[in-house]
Structure formats: structure tokens, C-alpha cells
């Protein structure tokens, strides 16, 4: 399977989808699903291969290369799978919306660009695909209009700043080493000075950090994720922002090299420590922000930021355990967060666009399967044992404790408790509690929505019970980075200080469940009662007024909110305001009086001559 063919299928599929959409929407839908499935199959067939193809010999003197390695395979697989599921999910979600051909074609383009990013073998093609990914993402975020416009704008500007920083970085690298291929750059970096490496790292770090929405660059993410169409939010949160993680892995382990990276600032404040502190802030602050949210998608968006913090925390330690944890958490987050966004999408689809946590409730009665997968997703997000999130978080915590960073471990563990708070709010306010009258006749989710969600929830449980499957892939990535391989078993990890064995947990939990279930079954008769048959001090409860969801964590909000200011966001907004103000200020130069204009010309000339006559600088 050649990489060029893969990219041609990916990019051409996107284009052809649009063309077919002009012909027939049915044909287009089928084709889109087909293309995305084909991509999954093609990427899957690349497993374990190491290819290296130069597909464009001379782009302004630089050659563009595609390659596949263990790391890029994992990212490509995740991207193509999520892309495929998201396309399938869109089939019903986008039904009846306008400009669907555009939507599908952009969705596939984003997918293709992500594949391009992870399969790039040199920094320039990485950048090209990165930019294509950025603008196509922008178009999809803005797709809904209204508040999505501001969100899209914020995304674009921030991501553009990032990618321009990356451009500057990669051209500096080109200037010094004369090549942009990973191998060549890595070879050059071996002998580079620490200051140089730091500068390059910062330039690239801004790009990757912005995409990954780690703390000081997180401001674009919450509005963008909440305003994008839900199937795309799934991709956005699941895989697209993880391109930043890919970038960090790439620069730390492939380009700069772990030893160089760990040595940066080792005498003062080590860079990896800075990165882990940034990761910790990224966990803590957004977690509390998520607790405060009343919009389901915004809540998930903030949660995405917080989870990105775990991944960065894992990567920044650079041990085999922590990197495995970080990478595994990326995979897991992609799975369960995509699942949760799809859940919101389903709810939105059935309730005609309602995602306000204050006005939903009780949907478990109408959409039991959606609730079940949401529960599994939330369990994964929290990291309940036997779901995938547990294993990856366990790896990260264990690293933190073994590396004697109890304060970071504290943040990580405490963040998990925050996660419980907002996840429960998410579940409760949508699915539990009283079903409002207006949703009495809600239908359950359509087949094309249930299918991808079910697949994802199965993956959540599968990776939680048999973490050995993904961990063996991740272990090979670890070894390719030159890290010590982990002792992976199918059921977890065998190691000296505190091993992990999911089979024991599984058996124990199942036995416990079974016993309790039997006890419950044996104990007396039970009647099912209506939700209105509720103790309300003897009163028959009023319909629609007996749901406790508004201000679910009001006391905590009252306590924490005064200290919880997203000052980075307000800083960016103020900055944008300043630029606008500066623009209007400068515009006053053009007064509209032609006399002034003539004066400018003459004055400029006079100044030139005066300066030359006085100081003769030229």
C-alpha cells in the first residue's frame, strides 16, 4: 500500500464528494462513507511497516516526504477511524441541513489533512498539511453561523499565530541544516546549541500548544468545540487537537531527541518541568471551568482542555511509563470524547438543537442506549476501573509518584475528582431527573447514530479490560523513541512496584456485581413507579418544575467563581480590541483632505533630504 495512493484517495475523495453532492445526495453519502472506510482499511494495512517516500522532489528546492512509523500509524489509525465514524454519524445528523456537500467534503478534507500531518516525513509537508487542516477546520467551525462565527475567528487567529510561529521555526531549521527531513533535522540537532534548540522548541511549541489547547493557548477551544457541528466536534476534540500531541512527541523524541530535551535548562528551570507545570495548570483550571458550564458541549470542550493536560503531563516526563500513559491517554481520550460529543449530537438532533443543561433532563427514559454509551464514555473520562481511561491515568499517576512529583500527582488526582463533578452534571442534567413534558414523545436515536456510538463504547470497555492490545502498539512506539520497553501483558502491566492487573479487578467487580444483583433479586417484590410518583412532602409534583438542574453546583460556584477568571482569554480579547483600536487610530492618518496628503508627500521628501544632509546615513 503506497502512501501516495492513500493521500490521493483521501484528498481526491474529499473533492469528489463535493462533486457527487451536486449530482445526488444519496450517492454522495454513500461515497463519503466508502472513502472513509477505505482510508481506515488502507491505514490499517500499513501496520508495522516503515515506509519512506519522497512524493514531491522539488518544492522550492525542498523535497517533500511521506513516511509511516509506529507513532504516525497510531495517530493515522485513530484519525481515520474517528473520521469514518463521524461521517457515519453525520448521515442522520446533517440530514436536512443546508450545504451538506460542503460539509462532507470539508470533513473528509480535514481527515485527509490530518492523515497528511501524521504521515509527513519532513517539516514542510507537515506544515502544508497543518495549514490545510487549519483552514478547513475553520470553515467547519464557522459552518453553523451565529455565535460560531466568533468561535471560528478566534480559532483561526490563534491557530494562525501558531502555524506562523511554526513556519518561522521550520525555516530557521532549514536555514541552519539545509534540510527539513526528520532524519536530517535530528542529525543536525545533535550538535546544536541549547539556546538554539530552546528557540526552535518554543516556536514549534506555540504551534503545537495552540492546536492542543494547553493552558495559555486554550482560549479558542471552548467556543470552537461548542459551536461546531457535533460530529465535527467529535473529530475536533478527539483527534484534531491531538495533532498538537503528535507534534510534541515528534519534536521531543524524533527531532530534538529526549536527551537534548531533558538537558534544556537543566541547570535552572528545566524545560520539561515547565511543560509539566503547564500540563498541571491545564488540568486544574479547565476542570473547574467545566464544572461551571451550562452548555453540554462547552462543558465537554473544557473537559477536553483538561484532558489534554494529562497527556502533556505524561509526555513531559519522558520515561517509558509516562510516555506510554500520555500516548495511551490520547487514544482513550479520542475514543471517549468523540463518543460523548456524539451523545450530545444525538440529543441535539432529537431535541431540535437543545444542548442547554438547564432545560434537558430524564432522557434516559427515551434514549436508553444513548444513555448507556454516555455512561460508558463518562466512566472512561473519569477513569473508572475497567474502562480505558483508568489504565492510561493509572500509568500517568504511577509515573508521577515514582518520579517523586507528588504535587503534580495531586493535581492529576484532584482533577479526576473535578472530572467526576462535571461528568455527573453532564449525565444528570441530560439523562437523569425528570423528563420535561415537551420531550414526552422523543424517539430514540437513529441507527446511523447508534452504530458509531456503540462501536466507540465497545472500544472504551475493550481497552479498559484488555489494555494489552493498545499498550503493545504503544510499547513499540516507546522502543522506537529509544525508551526502555514496558513489561506489557494482555491484562495490564507486570512490574516491580505496584503492578496493574485488570483481570483481578474485572473478576472482583463482576463477582461483586453478581452477588449484589442476586441479593437484590432475591429481596422482595418491586413495582415500577412513574417519575411523577415522587416524595414531595405529600404533594403531587408539578410537571416540568421538579427538576434540580439549574445551578447544580451553585454553592461551589459561589465559592470558586470569584477566583476563576479566564484571564488569558480576556487578555486575548483585549489584544484583539487593541489591534482594532490601533487600526482605527492609524486610519486617521488618511484624513480625506488632499492638502494633507500632498503635505505628506512633500514632508516625506523633505525629511529624506534633511536626514541625509544632516547625518548622511545613506
Amino acid at each position: 500500500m503506497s502512501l501516495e495512493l492513500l493521500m490521493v484517495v483521501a484528498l481526491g475523495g474529499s473533492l469528489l464528494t463535493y462533486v457527487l453532492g451536486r449530482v445526488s445526495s444519496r450517492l454522495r453519502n454513500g461515497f463519503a462513507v466508502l472513502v472513509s472506510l477505505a482510508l481506515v482499511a488502507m491505514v490499517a494495512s500499513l501496520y508495522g511497516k516503515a515506509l519512506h517516500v519522497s512524493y514531491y522532489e522539488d518544492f522550492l528546492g525542498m523535497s517533500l516526504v511521506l513516511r509511516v512509523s509506529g507513532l504516525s500509524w497510531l495517530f493515522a489509525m485513530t484519525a481515520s477511524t474517528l473520521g469514518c465514524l463521524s461521517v457515519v454519524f453525520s448521515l442522520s445528523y446533517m440530514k436536512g441541513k443546508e450545504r451538506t456537500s460542503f460539509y462532507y467534503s470539508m470533513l473528509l478534507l480535514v481527515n485527509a489533512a490530518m492523515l497528511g500531518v501524521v504521515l509527513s516525513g519532513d517539516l514542510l509537508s507537515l506544515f502544508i498539511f497543518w495549514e490545510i487542516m487549519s483552514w478547513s477546520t475553520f470553515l467547519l467551525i464557522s459552518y453553523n453561523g451565529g455565535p460560531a462565527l466568533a468561535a471560528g475567528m478566534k480559532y483561526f487567529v490563534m491557530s494562525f499565530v501558531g502555524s506562523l510561529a511554526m513556519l518561522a521555526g521550520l525555516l530557521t531549521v532549514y536555514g541552519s541544516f539545509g534540510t527539513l527531513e526528520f532524519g536530517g533535522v535530528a542529525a543536525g540537532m545533535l550538535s546544536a546549541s541549547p539556546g538554539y534548540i530552546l528557540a526552535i522548541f518554543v516556536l514549534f511549541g506555540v504551534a503545537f500548544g495552540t492546536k492542543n489547547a494547553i493552558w495559555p493557548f486554550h482560549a479558542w477551544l471552548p467556543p470552537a468545540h461548542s459551536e461546531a457541528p457535533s460530529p465535527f466536534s467529535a473529530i475536533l476534540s478527539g483527534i484534531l487537537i491531538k495533532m498538537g500531541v503528535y507534534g510534541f512527541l515528534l519534536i521531543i523524541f524524533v527531532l530534538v531527541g529526549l536527551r537534548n530535551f531533558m538537558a534544556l535548562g537543566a541547570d535552572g528551570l528545566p524545560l520539561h518541568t515547565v511543560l509539566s507545570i503547564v500540563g498541571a495548570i491545564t488540568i486544574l483550571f479547565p476542570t473547574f471551568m467545566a464544572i461551571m458550564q451550562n452548555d453540554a458541549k462547552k462543558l465537554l470542550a473544557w473537559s477536553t482542555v483538561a484532558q489534554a493536560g494529562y497527556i502533556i503531563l505524561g509526555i513531559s516526563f519522558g520515561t517509558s511509563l509516562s510516555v506510554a500513559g500520555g500516548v495511551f491517554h490520547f487514544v482513550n481520550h479520542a475514543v471517549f470524547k468523540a463518543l460523548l460529543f456524539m451523545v450530545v449530537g444525538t440529543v441535539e438532533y432529537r431535541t431540535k438543537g437543545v444542548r442547554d443543561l438547564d432545560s434537558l433532563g430524564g432522557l434516559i427514559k427515551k434514549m436508553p442506549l444513548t444513555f448507556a454509551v454516555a455512561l460508558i464514555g463518562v466512566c472512561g473520562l473519569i477513569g473508572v476501573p475497567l474502562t480505558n481511561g483508568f489504565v492510561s491515568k493509572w500509568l500517568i499517576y504511577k509515573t508521577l509518584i515514582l518520579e517523586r512529583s507528588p504535587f503534580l500527582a495531586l493535581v492529576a488526582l484532584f482533577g479526576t475528582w473535578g472530572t467526576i463533578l462535571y461528568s455527573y452534571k453532564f449525565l444528570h442534567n441530560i439523562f437523569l431527573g425528570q423528563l420535561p413534558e415537551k420531550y414526552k414523545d422523543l424517539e430514540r436515536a437513529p441507527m446511523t447514530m447508534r452504530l458509531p456510538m456503540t462501536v466507540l463504547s465497545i472500544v472504551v470497555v475493550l481497552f479498559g479490560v484488555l489494555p494489552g492490545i493498545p499498550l503493545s502498539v504503544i510499547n513499540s512506539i516507546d522502543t522506537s523513541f529509544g525508551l526502555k520497553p514496558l513489561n506489557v501483558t494482555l491484562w495490564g502491566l507486570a512490574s516491580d512496584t505496584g503492578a496493574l492487573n485488570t483481570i483481578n479487578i474485572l473478576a472482583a467487580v463482576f463477582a461483586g456485581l453478581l452477588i449484589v444483583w442476586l441479593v437484590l433479586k432475591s429481596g422482595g417484590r418491586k413495582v415500577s413507579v412513574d417519575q411523577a410518583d415522587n416524595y414531595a412532602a405529600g404533594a403531587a409534583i408539578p410537571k416540568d418544575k421538579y427538576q434540580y438542574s439549574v445551578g447544580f453546583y451553585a454553592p461551589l460556584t459561589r465559592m470558586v467563581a470569584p477566583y476563576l477568571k479566564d484571564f488569558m482569554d480576556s487578555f486575548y480579547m483585549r489584544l484583539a480590541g487593541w489591534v482594532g483600536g490601533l487600526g482605527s487610530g492609524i486610519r486617521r492618518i488618511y484624513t480625506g483632505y488632499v492638502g494633507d496628503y500632498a503635505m505628506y508627500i512633500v514632508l516625506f521628501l523633505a525629511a529624506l533630504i534633511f536626514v541625509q544632509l544632516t547625518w548622511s546615513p545613506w
Partner: protein
Amino acid sequence: MVSPVLLIVIPLGLAFCVPLIGMVSKRFARFVPVVACLFNLVVSVQLLPAVLSKPIVVDLGGFGAPFSINLFVGPVGILFSLLIALAGFVVSLYALAYIDKGPTTRYHTLYLLLLVGATGVVLTGDVFNLFVFFEILCISSYVLVAYRGDKDGVESAVKYLIQGALGSALLLTGIGLLYGLFGTLNMAHIAVQAGSADPIPLFVAMALIVVGLGVEAAIFPLNAWLPDAHSSAPSSISAILSGIAIEVGLYAVVRMVFTVFGASSMLSFLMFLGVLTLLVGELCAFAQSNIKRMLAYSSIGQIGLIIFAIAIATSGSITGGFFQLVSHTLSKALLFLAAGYMIYRSGSMDISSLEGMGKRMPLTAFAFAVGAFSLVGLPPFAGFPSKLLIIRGALADGGALLALLVGLVLLGTVIEGAYFFRVIQTVFFKKGDGETARCEAPAIALVSMFVLVALIIVIGVYPSLIIGVLNSAASELLVRADYIGRVLG
């Protein structure tokens, strides 16, 4: 081989034929510019290989240089004449549909004259000849700006006229000074003697000429005419003004500074001026709510970028500058053309009135988006390789000052991205409550736009198509002795 003189003579002749043909049939007269531009395009393409291997010098009147007026068709000249012919051709196609009211014959005459002037400026090797062609260019553009005859148009045309005239006066004074100093008007001949001249009068002459040309080249702070003129001209003329006229002015400045005066000490000043122009242009554009003014200010910014790139004066950066020039011409012409019909349909130049145009005129809106993407420098459009080259050229030096300037340039790019994407959002995604009926631009206008779209994408994906021309253009500018040697023999 065809003579490069034809590039000027044929369109000039045709320009004066237009009124004659117009007497017979106005419909027929419309096609004259198309034919003329097509002719120029063909001739330029034919000349291209020969020019690349060896620049062509044509002495008029049979005397050798420096005594005759000569044309110097080097890589730079052929690049510009190709661009002018191409943009002229596309815009004249567009004008077939767009210019349907008013004194159309006069429009076409003036339009051709403008192109003749532009071609003349870029091909001539004589300073005074340059001035003459420059005046042809300027005067026809003054008139064309006022083509609509409305208050706005006339007012800005008059402003443009006053500033342009001032610039021309300065230019002429400068040329006079040069003649006084050297007793010759041949560029190469002046260049030979420039090194040994008295520095102060030489500088004054240079300052006069650069400022005079700088008015047309829209260098900050000499560019005050531009937003008015570009925004109140008919869109086809705006496209030509933005895509061709100011580039030609820029060419003249660059030619003077690099070849004639060899003033390498001025370059760092020009670099700063370029960045300043860029930032001012982008910031003003950011604060605009009128789409054509926004595009006009964006042209200022782009000119600043090109000046910055060329003033770095390394082969890579000049190549980048020329590349940017090409991509700017294509993209900005496309933007004005697309915006022209969107404005025509919505009846207002306000950005907010373009709501829902993505649905009403999908193809035009698509063309607009391609232009904007390219101008912002996103792959895979033509603006990307050019920006890449510029920044690569600037960073290759490795100086901290240049790195800082690159930072400012990138900042300008971010601002540019912000306002272009705001328009794209308005066009495609803002839910307008007005009309929703389809009202696509006429087929011929669409053809012209899509020629540009295709060029932008092809150049963006295969930059090597034009990189050869650009490289030799860069070396023409850098190697001054070569130019002198070619002309003086």
C-alpha cells in the same frame, strides 16, 4: 522572433482604433482590449525563452545606447509584461460583461492606454521614456477612476490626480537633475556614472525620483490616494490598479534604486519602510467595514511586504518578493473581480451587506475565498510559496533584526488573515435575512475569475513553473554590471 516593440505598439495602435471601431459598433469595440491583451500575452510567452537565455535590448531609431531610447527586455521586464498582459486579458474579459453602462468606448481606449503605459514602464531602458509611459499610465487611471461619474469617483479621481501630479512633478524634477548631473537619460549610462557623481545632488535626485514614483507605488506615507481611488473606481479598474498599476510603480522604484543608483545603503531603510507600510496597511484594513477599501488597504500591506522582501536584497528574498508580486496580482485581481459582482448584486460595499452571498453567488464567492486564502498565504494556493520564500530569504541571513522584522511581518499576516476570514465568514456562514434567490455573475465574468483561480492553484501546487523566471529576475536586479553590459555593449 517577434520584436518586443510590438508589445507597446500594437496595443497603442489598437487603443486609438477603439473609438473608430466604436463608431461602427460599440459591441465590437469591447473586444479590442481582449484581442490586444491576448496578443501581448502570446508575444510575451513567445519572447520568454529567448529572454531567459539572454536579455533583448532594442535600440529605437537605429542609434546605439546611450544615445537612443532603448527597450530592455530582461527577465524582470518580461515577467511584468506577462503579468500585465495576463491581468489585462482577464480583466478585459470580465469587463465585457461588467462595463455595460456609460461611455464604454472611452473606457476601453483608456484601459488599453493604461496597459500600454504599464508595459512601457517595465520595458523601457530610458529614464525620460519611463516618465512618459508613467504619465500615460497615471493619466488614464485618473480618468478611469472617475469613470462612473458619480461624486465619489470624481472626488477621489481629483485627489488621485493632485497627488499623482505632485509625484510626477517630483519625478520630472529628479529626472531633470539627473540629466544635469550626467548629461544622459539612459539608465545603464547613468548607472555607470552614478558611482563617481557628487553624492548630495545624486541623493537629491534619487530622493525626488523615489518619492515621485513612490506615490504610485503606494509606499507609506505616500499612499493616501490609494484607498479612495481603488474603492471608488469600477471594480475591473480597481483590479487593474491594485494588480498592475501599483506594482508597476514598485517596479520603477526598485529599478531606480537597484539598477540606476545602485543605492544598497538605502535598502535597509526601504526594508523598514516596507514593514511599516505592511503594518499600516493591514491595521487600516482590519478596521474597515467597506470591502473595497479593505481590499485597497490590503494592497498597501502587500506592497509593503514586497518592498520588504526585495529590500533584503538576497537572491532568495527577491525571488520571494517577485513571487509575492505575482501571487498578489493574481489574487488581488481575483478578489476585486469577485467582490465587484457581489457588490453589484447586493448594491452596497458594506461587508455586512455581503451576507448570504455564498448561497446566492456560490461560484463568485468561491473565487473570492480562493483569492483570500491565497493572499493570506495558505497552502495550496499561490500565496503560500511566495510567503515561504520571503520568510526563508529573510531568515536565511540569521540576523536578529531581520528575525524581529519577520516577526512583525508575520503579525501583519495574522491581522490580514483575521480580516479576510471575517469577510469569508460573512459571505458564507452569516445567516442573512435578505434575499436568497440565486444571482450568479455572468458566464464571461466567471470565466475570467476561474482563469485566475486555476492559475492560483496551479502556481500554488507547482511553484517551479514560474520559479525559473523569478530567479533570473532576481539576478537581473542583483547583478547590476550585467544590465549595464547588456545595454552598453
